[in-house]
């Protein structure tokens, strides 16, 4: 009880024996020197009054001192000593192993740890002593290829360390020339900013990043991303990829590009495709090729086939149409075969063999010249001089194919039809 304010506070010093406040408000049970006895039989920990913390940092989410911590405070009700308040902790160096059966000992198995005897309460990381006893040893062992070595080089008293009882660490290190920020989970996940501003973010478990609104990433230098498992990228809206330089995509397996809409590929220079085999199919509509200049189709060792399964094949050129080949040329049609020219028609050959089951009609509008010896001849009156089988022998047998038929691809490797342009960049595979 106090009258007209607090005039008779009773100051105390004591040891935290319990911080498991059932109301979860940061209260502590403290055994106070010269107020409470050593004996836990006379005063069990659970009968000690709860001390309310006075939080000088004005942060209600303060970290209650762990069992075994030495603290300082006062009793609001003076000598009655039933309403303690605790002001803060006092660092020290335990010189005895704790015995939780006795008062003034923490019952936690965390602090003081048996091996913490003769070690100050100030964290090793803050002291810069025996860092190998800390998580740094593990961090060195589990170092990845691209992971920089821990930049820890703390000097007392510059490193401000908060380490929780399970091993989470938060460091704000102002050690000269070794300034760092380190946030580390007990499992090894950490985020560390080194003295040069280099930041390492290592996640030993799964990693999830969620940005509820827009996100931006700017990397001013080069960037390497290595994904050792399957990577899935899903863009639920448009995706724009802009590459100011050359973009090289190396796929060691298949490359499957599935597009629900159209594919529009525009190139300011050559568009080159190279593959062991190329198959393109317009399964619903036309397949169009357009070139400002030439269109060249070349088959080095195989054939070139053009089929119109249900339609016709037309070829149109403003100037000449040339069909040249080193072997024979066959035109085979089930319908009529018409050759029409607005100019002369010239047929050159060592022999011209006209073979028909019907008549051969020559209906010139002008004179018919026959140069050379005319041996066999059928007169307009229909009188035959030779059998027709003898005449057809020179043409050979007709082609035995009918549309549609399956295309047979040649599996043999053949060389490029067009040499790739010189980009000035070495091939990635070669560089690797």
């Amino acid at each position, binding site marked *: 009880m106090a*009258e007209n304010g607090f005039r008779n506070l009773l100051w105390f010093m004591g040891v935290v024996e319990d911080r498991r406040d059932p109301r979860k408000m940061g209260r502590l049970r403290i055994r106070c020197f*010269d107020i*409470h006895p050593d004996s836990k039989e006379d*005063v069990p920990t659970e*009968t000690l009054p*709860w001390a309310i913390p006075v939080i000088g940092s004005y942060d209600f989410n303060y970290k209650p001192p762990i069992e075994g911590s030495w603290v300082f405070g006062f009793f609001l*009700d003076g000598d009655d000593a039933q309403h303690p308040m605790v002001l803060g902790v006092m660092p020290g160096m335990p010189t005895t192993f704790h015995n939780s059966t006795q008062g003034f000992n923490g019952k936690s198995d965390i602090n003081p740890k048996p091996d913490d005897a003769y070690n100050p309460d100030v964290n090793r990381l803050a002291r810069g002593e025996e860092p190998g006893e800390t998580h740094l040893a593990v961090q060195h062992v589990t170092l990845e290829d691209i992971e920089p070595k821990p930049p820890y080089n703390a000097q007392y008293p510059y490193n401000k360390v908060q380490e929780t009882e399970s091993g989470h660490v938060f460091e704000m290190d102002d050690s000269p020339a070794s300034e760092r920020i380190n946030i580390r989970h007990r499992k090894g996940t950490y985020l560390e900013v080194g003295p040069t501003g280099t930041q390492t973010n290592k996640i030993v478990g799964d990693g999830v990043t969620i940005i509820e609104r827009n996100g931006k990433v700017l990397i001013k230098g080069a960037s390497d991303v290595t994904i050792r498992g399957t990577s899935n990228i899903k863009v639920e809206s448009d995706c724009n990829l802009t590459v100011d330089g050359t973009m090289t995509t190396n796929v060691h397996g298949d490359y499957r590009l599935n597009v629900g809409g159209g594919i529009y590929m525009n190139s300011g220079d050559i568009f080159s495709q190279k593959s062991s085999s190329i198959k393109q199919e317009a399964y619903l509509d036309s397949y169009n090729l357009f070139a400002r200049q030439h269109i060249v189709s070349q088959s080095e060792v195989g054939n070139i086939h053009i089929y119109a399964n249900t339609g016709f094949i037309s070829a149109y050129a403003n100037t000449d149409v040339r069909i040249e080949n080193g072997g024979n040329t066959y035109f085979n049609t089930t319908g009529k075969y018409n050759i029409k020219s607005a100019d002369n028609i010239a047929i050159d050959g060592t022999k011209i063999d006209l073979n028909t089951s019907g008549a051969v009609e020559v209906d010139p509008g002008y004179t018919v010249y026959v140069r050379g010896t005319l041996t066999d001849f059928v007169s307009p009156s229909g009188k035959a001089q030779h059998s027709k089988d003898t005449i057809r022998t020179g043409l050979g047998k007709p082609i035995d194919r009918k549309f549609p038929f399956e295309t047979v691809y040649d599996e043999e490797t053949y060389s490029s039809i067009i040499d790739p342009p010189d980009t000035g960049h070495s091939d990635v595979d070669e560089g690797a």
Partner: protein
Amino acid sequence: MAENTFDIGFGGISNATLSHYHKKNAPPFNIANYITELSFSESIDSPALMGQMKLLDSSGLIDNFPIIGEEIFNLTYVDFFGNEISQEFLIYSVSDAVPGEQQNFMYYTLNFVSAHHFLDVSRKVQKSYQNLTVKEIIQLIFDEYLVDETRFPNSNNEIEIEDTAGIQTIVIPSLRPIEAINFLSRRSFSDVNKSSNYHFYQTREKFKMKTHEQMIKDGRPKAIEYTYNPALLASEISDRDDGMNNLLKLEIPNRLNTIREIASGAMITDVVEIDILNKQMIHNPYTYKDTFQDYTHNEKSVRFPHTNKFRQDFFEADGMSKSHLVFVDSERPNQRYIDIIAPRTSNLYYHSEFTLSVEIYGRNDLFVGDVIKLGIFEFEESSSKQPELNKSFSGYWLVNSIDHTIEIDKTYKCKLKLSKDLAHGDNSGVSTIAELTSEFEG
């Protein structure tokens, strides 16, 4: 009625011996003939009997015995009525030593105290008590810390504790046993006696922890009656018992003190409960006017101390001059600060505002915490009519303390400090009269 031949005011030492603490089986040394005067006191505010005796030592007792401050002093004394009381004390200091003119003797004073006090100052209570009433806790502390029949087999270890309400869990914070009991008595609540004005004290008979209300209830039925006639000489008294019941002296140290009353918060106060965890501050105003009829007073009819106008102008108009901050711990029920603090403050004050100091011939049947009844006539010029009793000074008085003095001439006197919370009143005065009938006659 005493059937003895003692002179009025007789009282004497029957036995007074010193024993070495470390040689309890050795025959005690009789010092009765050394004692020129012996006095000791008891009080409802003191948990120990303390006294002193003046010795005329012509045999070098102090050095030869020697007296080193650990002697057991056994005292037996008898009063006019032949009642004898034996008690055990411990010598704890020697003071006021004055050598005789011829250096053939020495005067000095031996100070003594009840043995429990030695146990008290040498022990400390650091212990928690769970789910017990305060009465039970006090009994446990008393038995464990203030009773040591091995070291002090002749001590009177009886204690009488008034019931307390409510189960409590409490840690005694390193207090001496008597401090611990006083600490607990301040936290005691009585369902019966609403003042909760508990006192822990030691009489020549036993220890007690009682409210002043209970003292009054217990004391009024057996109150010894005294009259005051200073002009009457003992030799003129025909009835020896009447002589024993005549006040030898009467003084009035305190009659009233309004300034002190206002400042004390006895009339009006505020108990402010602070609940830190629940972030609550609750004012609990208290006025004596509203509650004084709930308490047991010395008198059946009492006069409220002030008129309504004065009370309103000086106790209430400018707010409360006194407040008490208490801290609520919701996890420790039955603290009942509101029920204890304000009533206790009021009752403590009003039992100190009106006090008398009287001197009587010593008697062994009167103890602190008892009640005596005074019959004191009006302090007026004598007139022809029969003198009337003064209503303020007459009536029932609580014995707060007794200083016993036994002198070498075999006279035994007691100085009593008496208190009365509210004066007997009637309707002729300026203030309110309250008729209190409940339990008045015990």
